[in-house]
Protein backbone atom coordinates (compact mmCIF):
# COMPACT_ATOMS: atom_id res chain seq x y z
CA UNK A 1 0.00 0.00 0.00
CA UNK A 2 1.27 3.48 -0.90
CA UNK A 3 1.81 6.12 1.77
CA UNK A 4 -1.31 8.09 2.69
CA UNK A 5 -1.67 11.48 0.98
CA UNK A 6 -2.87 13.05 4.22
CA UNK A 7 -1.66 12.02 7.66
CA UNK A 8 -2.85 13.84 10.77
CA UNK A 9 -1.53 12.89 14.18
CA UNK A 10 -2.67 14.19 17.55
CA UNK A 11 -4.16 17.37 16.10
CA UNK A 12 -5.46 19.87 18.62
CA UNK A 13 -6.70 23.38 17.95
CA UNK A 14 -7.61 25.93 20.57
CA UNK A 15 -9.16 29.36 20.01
CA UNK A 16 -8.49 31.07 23.32
CA UNK A 17 -10.13 28.88 25.95
CA UNK A 18 -12.20 27.05 23.40
CA UNK A 19 -10.67 23.76 22.32
CA UNK A 20 -12.26 23.06 18.95
CA UNK A 21 -10.21 19.99 18.02
CA UNK A 22 -9.30 17.61 20.82
CA UNK A 23 -6.94 15.07 19.33
CA UNK A 24 -7.60 14.05 15.73
CA UNK A 25 -5.78 11.15 14.06
CA UNK A 26 -6.58 10.60 10.43
CA UNK A 27 -5.06 9.08 7.34
CA UNK A 28 -6.41 9.50 3.84
CA UNK A 29 -5.28 7.31 0.97
CA UNK A 30 -4.59 8.64 -2.50
CA UNK A 31 -7.82 8.77 -4.50
CA UNK A 32 -10.03 8.41 -1.45
CA UNK A 33 -13.15 10.59 -1.01
CA UNK A 34 -13.77 11.36 2.65
CA UNK A 35 -16.83 13.24 3.87
CA UNK A 36 -16.81 15.03 7.20
CA UNK A 37 -20.19 15.33 8.85
CA UNK A 38 -21.28 16.50 12.25
CA UNK A 39 -23.22 19.21 14.07
CA UNK A 40 -22.19 22.84 13.70
CA UNK A 41 -19.34 23.71 16.03
CA UNK A 42 -18.07 20.14 15.95
CA UNK A 43 -14.77 21.23 14.39
CA UNK A 44 -15.28 19.94 10.82
CA UNK A 45 -14.29 23.16 9.08
CA UNK A 46 -11.43 23.80 11.47
CA UNK A 47 -10.06 20.32 10.80
CA UNK A 48 -10.29 20.96 7.06
CA UNK A 49 -8.59 24.36 7.38
CA UNK A 50 -5.78 22.83 9.41
CA UNK A 51 -4.86 20.52 6.53
CA UNK A 52 -3.57 23.44 4.43
CA UNK A 53 -2.61 25.45 7.51
CA UNK A 54 -5.17 28.21 6.97
CA UNK A 55 -5.59 27.50 10.69
CA UNK A 56 -2.42 26.85 12.58
CA UNK A 57 -2.71 23.75 14.76
CA UNK A 58 -2.08 24.23 18.45
CA UNK A 59 -0.61 20.75 18.68
CA UNK A 60 -0.02 17.78 16.42
CA UNK A 61 1.58 16.90 13.10
CA UNK A 62 0.16 17.10 9.60
CA UNK A 63 1.59 15.90 6.33
CA UNK A 64 -0.37 16.50 3.15
CA UNK A 65 0.43 15.85 -0.51
CA UNK A 66 4.01 15.00 0.41
CA UNK A 67 4.61 18.16 2.45
CA UNK A 68 5.32 18.25 6.15
CA UNK A 69 2.88 21.07 6.88
CA UNK A 70 3.71 21.47 10.55
CA UNK A 71 7.51 21.51 10.14
CA UNK A 72 8.91 24.84 11.32
CA UNK A 73 10.61 25.43 7.97
CA UNK A 74 7.70 24.24 5.82
CA UNK A 75 7.25 26.16 2.55
CA UNK A 76 3.50 26.55 2.86
CA UNK A 77 3.12 28.49 -0.40
CA UNK A 78 4.67 25.60 -2.29
CA UNK A 79 2.65 23.03 -0.34
CA UNK A 80 -0.68 24.80 -0.86
CA UNK A 81 -0.35 24.51 -4.65
CA UNK A 82 -0.80 20.79 -4.16
CA UNK A 83 -3.84 21.25 -1.92
CA UNK A 84 -6.82 22.86 -3.62
CA UNK A 85 -9.54 24.44 -1.52
CA UNK A 86 -13.16 25.33 -2.25
CA UNK A 87 -14.98 27.63 0.15
CA UNK A 88 -18.58 27.96 1.23
CA UNK A 89 -18.77 31.51 -0.14
CA UNK A 90 -16.77 30.77 -3.32
CA UNK A 91 -14.33 33.65 -2.70
CA UNK A 92 -13.73 34.28 -6.38
CA UNK A 93 -11.52 37.33 -6.93
CA UNK A 94 -14.21 39.93 -7.37
CA UNK A 95 -12.09 42.42 -9.31
CA UNK A 96 -11.06 39.93 -11.98
CA UNK A 97 -12.92 38.41 -14.88
CA UNK A 98 -13.87 34.74 -14.70
CA UNK A 99 -11.05 33.87 -17.07
CA UNK A 100 -8.50 35.85 -15.04
CA UNK A 101 -9.62 34.08 -11.88
CA UNK A 102 -8.17 30.94 -13.45
CA UNK A 103 -5.34 32.51 -15.45
CA UNK A 104 -3.76 34.79 -12.83
CA UNK A 105 -3.12 32.04 -10.25
CA UNK A 106 -1.41 29.92 -12.89
CA UNK A 107 0.66 32.88 -14.10
CA UNK A 108 1.65 34.14 -10.65
CA UNK A 109 1.95 30.88 -8.74
CA UNK A 110 3.14 28.37 -11.34
CA UNK A 111 4.72 30.90 -13.74
CA UNK A 112 2.80 29.26 -16.57
CA UNK A 113 3.23 31.04 -19.92
CA UNK A 114 0.19 33.13 -20.77
CA UNK A 115 -1.07 31.21 -23.81
CA UNK A 116 -0.81 27.94 -21.94
CA UNK A 117 -2.58 29.35 -18.87
CA UNK A 118 -5.44 30.70 -20.97
CA UNK A 119 -5.85 27.40 -22.80
CA UNK A 120 -5.88 25.50 -19.50
CA UNK A 121 -8.38 27.97 -18.03
CA UNK A 122 -10.74 27.52 -20.96
CA UNK A 123 -10.43 23.76 -20.75
CA UNK A 124 -11.24 23.76 -17.03
CA UNK A 125 -14.18 26.14 -17.46
CA UNK A 126 -15.60 23.88 -20.13
CA UNK A 127 -15.11 20.92 -17.84
CA UNK A 128 -17.22 22.51 -15.09
CA UNK A 129 -19.81 23.61 -17.66
CA UNK A 130 -19.09 27.36 -17.68
CA UNK A 131 -18.86 28.65 -21.22
CA UNK A 132 -19.29 32.10 -22.73
CA UNK A 133 -18.71 33.75 -19.31
CA UNK A 134 -14.96 34.31 -19.64
CA UNK A 135 -15.22 38.11 -19.52
CA UNK A 136 -17.98 38.33 -16.91
CA UNK A 137 -17.31 39.36 -13.32
CA UNK A 138 -18.01 36.86 -10.54
CA UNK A 139 -20.95 38.94 -9.27
CA UNK A 140 -22.71 38.50 -12.61
CA UNK A 141 -22.86 34.72 -12.15
CA UNK A 142 -25.29 32.66 -10.11
CA UNK A 143 -24.04 31.04 -6.91
CA UNK A 144 -23.89 27.63 -8.55
CA UNK A 145 -21.88 29.00 -11.47
CA UNK A 146 -19.54 30.84 -9.12
CA UNK A 147 -18.89 27.71 -7.13
CA UNK A 148 -18.15 25.71 -10.27
CA UNK A 149 -15.70 28.42 -11.35
CA UNK A 150 -14.16 28.26 -7.87
CA UNK A 151 -13.62 24.52 -8.28
CA UNK A 152 -12.04 25.11 -11.69
CA UNK A 153 -9.81 27.82 -10.20
CA UNK A 154 -8.62 25.47 -7.45
CA UNK A 155 -7.83 22.86 -10.12
CA UNK A 156 -5.91 25.40 -12.23
CA UNK A 157 -2.76 25.09 -10.12
CA UNK A 158 -2.95 21.29 -10.44
CA UNK A 159 -3.50 20.14 -6.85
CA UNK A 160 -3.14 16.51 -5.81
CA UNK A 161 -5.76 16.84 -3.12
CA UNK A 162 -8.92 18.92 -2.83
CA UNK A 163 -10.54 20.32 0.31
CA UNK A 164 -14.20 21.35 0.17
CA UNK A 165 -15.58 23.48 3.01
CA UNK A 166 -19.39 23.17 2.86
CA UNK A 167 -19.32 23.89 -0.88
CA UNK A 168 -23.11 23.87 -1.30
CA UNK A 169 -24.27 25.43 1.99
CA UNK A 170 -24.59 28.94 0.54
CA UNK A 171 -26.54 27.79 -2.52
CA UNK A 172 -30.25 27.70 -3.24
CA UNK A 173 -31.51 24.11 -3.05
CA UNK A 174 -32.29 23.86 -6.76
CA UNK A 175 -28.70 24.66 -7.81
CA UNK A 176 -26.91 22.45 -5.28
CA UNK A 177 -27.09 19.60 -7.78
CA UNK A 178 -24.97 21.27 -10.48
CA UNK A 179 -22.09 21.73 -8.04
CA UNK A 180 -22.39 18.21 -6.66
CA UNK A 181 -22.30 16.87 -10.25
CA UNK A 182 -18.95 18.58 -10.82
CA UNK A 183 -17.65 17.13 -7.56
CA UNK A 184 -18.83 13.66 -8.52
CA UNK A 185 -17.01 13.97 -11.82
CA UNK A 186 -13.86 14.97 -9.98
CA UNK A 187 -14.17 12.01 -7.63
CA UNK A 188 -14.67 9.70 -10.60
CA UNK A 189 -11.42 10.99 -12.11
CA UNK A 190 -9.65 9.78 -9.00
CA UNK A 191 -9.07 13.07 -7.17
CA UNK A 192 -8.46 12.74 -3.45
CA UNK A 193 -11.17 14.76 -1.73
CA UNK A 194 -11.89 15.81 1.83
CA UNK A 195 -15.40 17.27 1.96
CA UNK A 196 -17.20 18.99 4.82
CA UNK A 197 -20.84 18.63 3.90
CA UNK A 198 -24.43 18.42 5.03
CA UNK A 199 -25.44 16.65 1.80
CA UNK A 200 -26.02 13.14 3.11
CA UNK A 201 -27.14 11.83 -0.28
CA UNK A 202 -23.88 13.01 -1.81
CA UNK A 203 -21.87 11.43 1.01
CA UNK A 204 -23.74 8.18 0.61
CA UNK A 205 -23.18 8.06 -3.15
CA UNK A 206 -19.65 9.40 -3.55
CA UNK A 207 -17.74 8.99 -0.29
CA UNK A 208 -15.46 6.06 0.32
CA UNK A 209 -15.52 6.91 3.98
CA UNK A 210 -17.63 9.10 6.24
CA UNK A 211 -16.28 10.67 9.43
CA UNK A 212 -18.69 11.82 12.09
CA UNK A 213 -17.19 14.59 14.21
CA UNK A 214 -18.63 15.86 17.46
CA UNK A 215 -17.03 17.95 20.17
CA UNK A 216 -13.69 18.06 18.36
CA UNK A 217 -13.14 14.32 18.09
CA UNK A 218 -13.91 11.72 15.44
CA UNK A 219 -16.76 9.86 17.08
CA UNK A 220 -17.38 7.37 14.34
CA UNK A 221 -16.08 6.51 10.90
CA UNK A 222 -16.53 3.93 8.18
CA UNK A 223 -18.11 3.32 4.79
CA UNK A 224 -21.17 5.53 4.23
CA UNK A 225 -23.46 2.52 4.21
CA UNK A 226 -22.46 1.80 7.81
CA UNK A 227 -22.11 5.28 9.31
CA UNK A 228 -25.12 6.81 7.61
CA UNK A 229 -27.45 3.83 7.75
CA UNK A 230 -26.49 2.05 10.94
CA UNK A 231 -24.51 4.38 13.17
CA UNK A 232 -23.02 2.68 16.21
CA UNK A 233 -22.99 5.64 18.57
CA UNK A 234 -25.97 7.38 20.05
CA UNK A 235 -24.53 10.83 19.14
CA UNK A 236 -24.26 9.94 15.44
CA UNK A 237 -27.72 8.37 15.52
CA UNK A 238 -29.39 11.45 16.93
CA UNK A 239 -27.46 13.80 14.61
CA UNK A 240 -28.45 11.80 11.55
CA UNK A 241 -32.01 11.62 12.70
CA UNK A 242 -32.11 15.41 13.03
CA UNK A 243 -30.52 15.93 9.59
CA UNK A 244 -32.58 13.40 7.72
CA UNK A 245 -35.90 14.07 9.44
CA UNK A 246 -35.77 17.75 10.38
CA UNK A 247 -39.55 18.02 10.68
CA UNK A 248 -39.94 15.36 13.39
Amino acid sequence: MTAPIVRIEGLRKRFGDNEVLRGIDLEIAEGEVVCLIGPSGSGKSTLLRCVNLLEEPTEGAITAAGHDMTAPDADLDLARRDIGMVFQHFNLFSHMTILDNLVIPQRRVCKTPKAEAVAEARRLLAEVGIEGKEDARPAQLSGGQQQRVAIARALAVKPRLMLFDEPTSALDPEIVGEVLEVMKGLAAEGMTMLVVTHEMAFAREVADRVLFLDGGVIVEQGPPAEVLTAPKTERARSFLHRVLHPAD
Partner: protein
Amino acid sequence: MDTATDTAPARGARMTARGRRRLARTLQYAAIVAVVAVLAFAADWDRIAASFLQFDIAADMFPDVWTSFWNTIVYTVLAFAFGMVVGIPIALMRVSAFGPYRWFATAYVEVFRGLPALLVLFLVGFGVPQAFPGIQYPGGVYGQVAIGLGLTSSAYIAESVRAGIQAVPKGQVEAARSLGMSHTRTMVTVVLPQALRIVVPPLTNELVMLTKDSSLVFVLGVTTATMELSKFARNELTDTANATPLLVGGLLYLLLTIPLGLLARRLENREDKR
Protein backbone atom coordinates in the same frame (compact mmCIF):
# COMPACT_ATOMS: atom_id res chain seq x y z
CA MET B 1 -60.46 72.90 1.25
CA ASP B 2 -62.60 72.23 4.25
CA THR B 3 -59.66 72.22 6.69
CA ALA B 4 -59.37 75.94 5.97
CA THR B 5 -62.86 76.52 7.36
CA ASP B 6 -62.11 74.70 10.64
CA THR B 7 -61.15 76.56 13.76
CA ALA B 8 -57.41 76.63 14.44
CA PRO B 9 -57.08 74.20 17.43
CA ALA B 10 -59.45 71.68 15.87
CA ARG B 11 -57.56 71.84 12.62
CA GLY B 12 -54.27 70.84 14.23
CA ALA B 13 -55.89 67.85 15.82
CA ARG B 14 -57.84 66.68 12.80
CA MET B 15 -55.31 67.31 10.08
CA THR B 16 -54.03 64.23 8.31
CA ALA B 17 -50.29 63.40 8.37
CA ARG B 18 -50.03 64.30 4.73
CA GLY B 19 -51.78 67.60 5.34
CA ARG B 20 -49.33 68.44 8.13
CA ARG B 21 -46.35 67.65 5.89
CA ARG B 22 -47.77 69.86 3.15
CA LEU B 23 -48.32 72.71 5.59
CA ALA B 24 -44.79 72.40 6.96
CA ARG B 25 -43.33 72.49 3.48
CA THR B 26 -45.39 75.51 2.48
CA LEU B 27 -44.18 77.36 5.58
CA GLN B 28 -40.56 76.56 4.76
CA TYR B 29 -40.92 77.78 1.19
CA ALA B 30 -42.55 80.94 2.48
CA ALA B 31 -39.68 81.52 4.91
CA ILE B 32 -37.08 81.08 2.16
CA VAL B 33 -38.90 83.49 -0.16
CA ALA B 34 -39.05 86.01 2.70
CA VAL B 35 -35.30 85.74 3.40
CA VAL B 36 -34.42 86.09 -0.30
CA ALA B 37 -36.74 89.08 -0.62
CA VAL B 38 -35.23 90.85 2.40
CA LEU B 39 -31.69 90.24 1.09
CA ALA B 40 -32.63 91.43 -2.37
CA PHE B 41 -34.03 94.69 -1.00
CA ALA B 42 -31.45 95.27 1.70
CA ALA B 43 -28.36 94.60 -0.43
CA ASP B 44 -26.72 97.41 -2.30
CA TRP B 45 -26.63 95.69 -5.67
CA ASP B 46 -24.78 98.40 -7.50
CA ARG B 47 -22.06 98.29 -4.94
CA ILE B 48 -21.82 94.49 -5.09
CA ALA B 49 -21.69 94.55 -8.87
CA ALA B 50 -19.00 97.21 -8.75
CA SER B 51 -16.91 95.04 -6.41
CA PHE B 52 -17.33 91.65 -8.03
CA LEU B 53 -18.58 92.06 -11.57
CA GLN B 54 -16.13 94.33 -13.38
CA PHE B 55 -16.00 92.60 -16.72
CA ASP B 56 -13.03 94.57 -18.02
CA ILE B 57 -11.01 93.57 -14.93
CA ALA B 58 -12.05 89.96 -15.41
CA ALA B 59 -11.11 90.12 -19.09
CA ASP B 60 -7.74 91.62 -18.21
CA MET B 61 -6.89 88.53 -16.14
CA PHE B 62 -6.86 86.45 -19.30
CA PRO B 63 -4.80 84.84 -20.68
CA ASP B 64 -2.26 85.21 -17.82
CA VAL B 65 -4.55 83.47 -15.34
CA TRP B 66 -4.18 80.22 -17.27
CA THR B 67 -0.55 79.92 -16.15
CA SER B 68 -1.58 79.97 -12.52
CA PHE B 69 -4.56 77.73 -13.27
CA TRP B 70 -2.19 75.24 -14.87
CA ASN B 71 0.24 75.54 -11.91
CA THR B 72 -2.60 74.77 -9.51
CA ILE B 73 -3.25 71.56 -11.44
CA VAL B 74 0.46 70.67 -11.56
CA TYR B 75 0.96 71.27 -7.81
CA THR B 76 -2.11 69.22 -6.99
CA VAL B 77 -1.12 66.32 -9.22
CA LEU B 78 2.49 66.31 -7.97
CA ALA B 79 1.44 66.38 -4.32
CA PHE B 80 -1.16 63.68 -4.92
CA ALA B 81 1.37 61.49 -6.74
CA PHE B 82 3.83 61.90 -3.86
CA GLY B 83 1.01 61.19 -1.40
CA MET B 84 0.10 57.96 -3.17
CA VAL B 85 3.67 56.75 -3.61
CA VAL B 86 4.38 57.27 0.09
CA GLY B 87 0.86 56.68 1.44
CA ILE B 88 0.34 53.18 0.02
CA PRO B 89 3.52 51.70 1.57
CA ILE B 90 2.63 53.42 4.85
CA ALA B 91 -0.83 51.82 4.67
CA LEU B 92 0.77 48.42 4.08
CA MET B 93 3.06 48.99 7.05
CA ARG B 94 0.05 49.92 9.17
CA VAL B 95 -1.46 46.47 8.61
CA SER B 96 1.85 44.60 8.77
CA ALA B 97 2.32 41.77 11.23
CA PHE B 98 5.81 43.16 11.96
CA GLY B 99 5.60 45.48 14.97
CA PRO B 100 8.26 48.08 14.10
CA TYR B 101 6.63 48.72 10.68
CA ARG B 102 3.28 49.27 12.39
CA TRP B 103 4.78 51.59 15.01
CA PHE B 104 6.63 53.65 12.44
CA ALA B 105 3.58 53.94 10.18
CA THR B 106 1.33 54.89 13.08
CA ALA B 107 3.75 57.60 14.21
CA TYR B 108 4.10 58.88 10.64
CA VAL B 109 0.34 59.13 10.19
CA GLU B 110 -0.23 60.79 13.56
CA VAL B 111 2.48 63.39 12.91
CA PHE B 112 1.60 64.41 9.37
CA ARG B 113 -2.15 64.21 9.92
CA GLY B 114 -1.80 66.27 13.05
CA LEU B 115 0.41 69.07 11.71
CA PRO B 116 -1.13 71.91 9.68
CA ALA B 117 -0.31 71.66 5.99
CA LEU B 118 1.03 75.21 6.12
CA LEU B 119 3.54 74.32 8.84
CA VAL B 120 4.76 71.27 6.93
CA LEU B 121 5.17 73.41 3.84
CA PHE B 122 7.24 75.90 5.84
CA LEU B 123 9.33 73.04 7.23
CA VAL B 124 10.05 71.67 3.78
CA GLY B 125 10.58 75.07 2.20
CA PHE B 126 12.66 76.74 4.92
CA GLY B 127 13.34 74.43 7.86
CA VAL B 128 14.97 71.61 5.96
CA PRO B 129 17.18 73.80 3.72
CA GLN B 130 18.40 75.59 6.84
CA ALA B 131 19.15 72.37 8.70
CA PHE B 132 20.77 70.73 5.69
CA PRO B 133 22.59 73.48 3.81
CA GLY B 134 23.04 72.85 0.13
CA ILE B 135 20.01 70.58 -0.15
CA GLN B 136 18.36 70.75 -3.55
CA TYR B 137 14.81 69.64 -4.17
CA PRO B 138 14.40 68.00 -7.56
CA GLY B 139 12.43 70.32 -9.81
CA GLY B 140 12.95 73.36 -7.56
CA VAL B 141 9.68 74.74 -6.26
CA TYR B 142 7.79 71.85 -7.87
CA GLY B 143 9.76 69.36 -5.80
CA GLN B 144 9.20 71.44 -2.66
CA VAL B 145 5.46 71.49 -3.28
CA ALA B 146 5.26 67.79 -4.08
CA ILE B 147 6.95 66.96 -0.79
CA GLY B 148 5.55 69.81 1.30
CA LEU B 149 1.92 69.18 0.44
CA GLY B 150 2.47 65.48 -0.31
CA LEU B 151 3.64 64.64 3.21
CA THR B 152 0.36 65.79 4.74
CA SER B 153 -1.59 64.17 1.95
CA SER B 154 0.25 60.86 2.30
CA ALA B 155 -0.94 60.56 5.90
CA TYR B 156 -4.58 60.93 4.85
CA ILE B 157 -4.12 58.66 1.85
CA ALA B 158 -2.45 56.03 4.05
CA GLU B 159 -5.42 56.04 6.40
CA SER B 160 -7.91 55.74 3.53
CA VAL B 161 -5.97 52.92 1.90
CA ARG B 162 -5.60 51.12 5.23
CA ALA B 163 -9.37 51.25 5.69
CA GLY B 164 -9.73 49.93 2.13
CA ILE B 165 -7.35 47.05 2.80
CA GLN B 166 -9.26 46.12 5.93
CA ALA B 167 -12.54 46.26 4.01
CA VAL B 168 -11.43 43.55 1.57
CA PRO B 169 -13.22 40.36 2.70
CA LYS B 170 -11.00 37.86 4.53
CA GLY B 171 -12.17 35.13 2.15
CA GLN B 172 -10.32 36.83 -0.71
CA VAL B 173 -7.05 36.49 1.17
CA GLU B 174 -7.78 32.90 2.16
CA ALA B 175 -8.56 31.98 -1.44
CA ALA B 176 -5.32 33.54 -2.66
CA ARG B 177 -3.24 31.86 0.04
CA SER B 178 -4.91 28.50 -0.56
CA LEU B 179 -3.81 28.74 -4.21
CA GLY B 180 -0.20 29.06 -3.09
CA MET B 181 0.21 32.83 -3.34
CA SER B 182 2.66 34.30 -0.85
CA HIS B 183 1.61 37.04 1.55
CA THR B 184 3.20 39.72 -0.64
CA ARG B 185 1.81 38.25 -3.84
CA THR B 186 -1.67 38.17 -2.27
CA MET B 187 -1.37 41.84 -1.30
CA VAL B 188 -0.26 42.93 -4.76
CA THR B 189 -2.54 40.73 -6.84
CA VAL B 190 -5.71 40.53 -4.79
CA VAL B 191 -5.94 42.87 -1.81
CA LEU B 192 -4.52 46.19 -3.08
CA PRO B 193 -6.45 46.27 -6.38
CA GLN B 194 -9.69 45.72 -4.46
CA ALA B 195 -8.74 48.12 -1.67
CA LEU B 196 -7.94 50.90 -4.14
CA ARG B 197 -11.34 50.48 -5.79
CA ILE B 198 -12.98 50.76 -2.40
CA VAL B 199 -11.14 53.99 -1.59
CA VAL B 200 -11.80 55.83 -4.86
CA PRO B 201 -14.36 58.14 -3.19
CA PRO B 202 -12.16 59.18 -0.23
CA LEU B 203 -9.16 59.57 -2.54
CA THR B 204 -11.12 61.86 -4.84
CA ASN B 205 -12.04 63.82 -1.76
CA GLU B 206 -8.35 64.06 -0.93
CA LEU B 207 -7.64 65.31 -4.46
CA VAL B 208 -10.24 68.06 -4.01
CA MET B 209 -8.69 69.02 -0.67
CA LEU B 210 -5.25 69.16 -2.30
CA THR B 211 -6.55 71.36 -5.11
CA LYS B 212 -7.51 73.87 -2.45
CA ASP B 213 -4.40 73.34 -0.31
CA SER B 214 -2.26 74.20 -3.33
CA SER B 215 -3.21 77.79 -2.49
CA LEU B 216 -0.72 77.56 0.39
CA VAL B 217 2.20 77.31 -2.02
CA PHE B 218 2.57 81.12 -2.08
CA VAL B 219 4.41 80.94 1.26
CA LEU B 220 7.39 79.42 -0.59
CA GLY B 221 7.76 82.66 -2.50
CA VAL B 222 6.63 82.18 -6.05
CA THR B 223 7.32 84.02 -9.30
CA THR B 224 4.85 84.82 -12.06
CA ALA B 225 5.80 81.58 -13.71
CA THR B 226 5.23 79.41 -10.64
CA MET B 227 2.24 81.24 -9.17
CA GLU B 228 -0.93 79.32 -8.42
CA LEU B 229 -4.51 80.51 -8.74
CA SER B 230 -5.12 82.03 -5.30
CA LYS B 231 -1.92 84.03 -5.32
CA PHE B 232 -2.64 85.27 -8.83
CA ALA B 233 -6.17 86.32 -7.86
CA ARG B 234 -4.88 88.07 -4.75
CA ASN B 235 -2.25 89.95 -6.73
CA GLU B 236 -4.92 91.10 -9.16
CA LEU B 237 -7.06 92.11 -6.21
CA THR B 238 -4.25 94.33 -4.92
CA ASP B 239 -3.45 95.75 -8.35
CA THR B 240 -7.02 96.63 -9.27
CA ALA B 241 -8.40 97.31 -5.78
CA ASN B 242 -11.40 95.27 -6.89
CA ALA B 243 -12.81 91.90 -5.82
CA THR B 244 -13.65 90.64 -9.31
CA PRO B 245 -10.41 88.59 -9.53
CA LEU B 246 -11.50 86.62 -6.45
CA LEU B 247 -14.74 85.68 -8.16
CA VAL B 248 -12.90 84.61 -11.31
CA GLY B 249 -10.34 82.66 -9.25
CA GLY B 250 -13.12 80.99 -7.26
CA LEU B 251 -14.96 79.96 -10.41
CA LEU B 252 -11.76 78.48 -11.83
CA TYR B 253 -11.32 76.37 -8.65
CA LEU B 254 -14.86 75.11 -9.06
CA LEU B 255 -14.05 74.32 -12.68
CA LEU B 256 -11.51 71.85 -11.26
CA THR B 257 -13.26 70.49 -8.19
CA ILE B 258 -16.83 70.00 -9.44
CA PRO B 259 -15.80 67.69 -12.33
CA LEU B 260 -13.70 65.74 -9.80
CA GLY B 261 -16.78 65.23 -7.66
CA LEU B 262 -18.79 64.10 -10.68
CA LEU B 263 -16.01 61.75 -11.72
CA ALA B 264 -15.93 60.25 -8.23
CA ARG B 265 -19.66 59.64 -8.32
CA ARG B 266 -19.38 57.94 -11.69
CA LEU B 267 -16.54 55.71 -10.52
CA GLU B 268 -18.55 54.84 -7.43
CA ASN B 269 -21.58 53.88 -9.48
CA ARG B 270 -19.45 51.77 -11.77
CA GLU B 271 -18.11 49.87 -8.78
CA ASP B 272 -21.64 49.30 -7.48
CA LYS B 273 -22.52 47.46 -10.65
CA ARG B 274 -19.87 44.87 -10.00
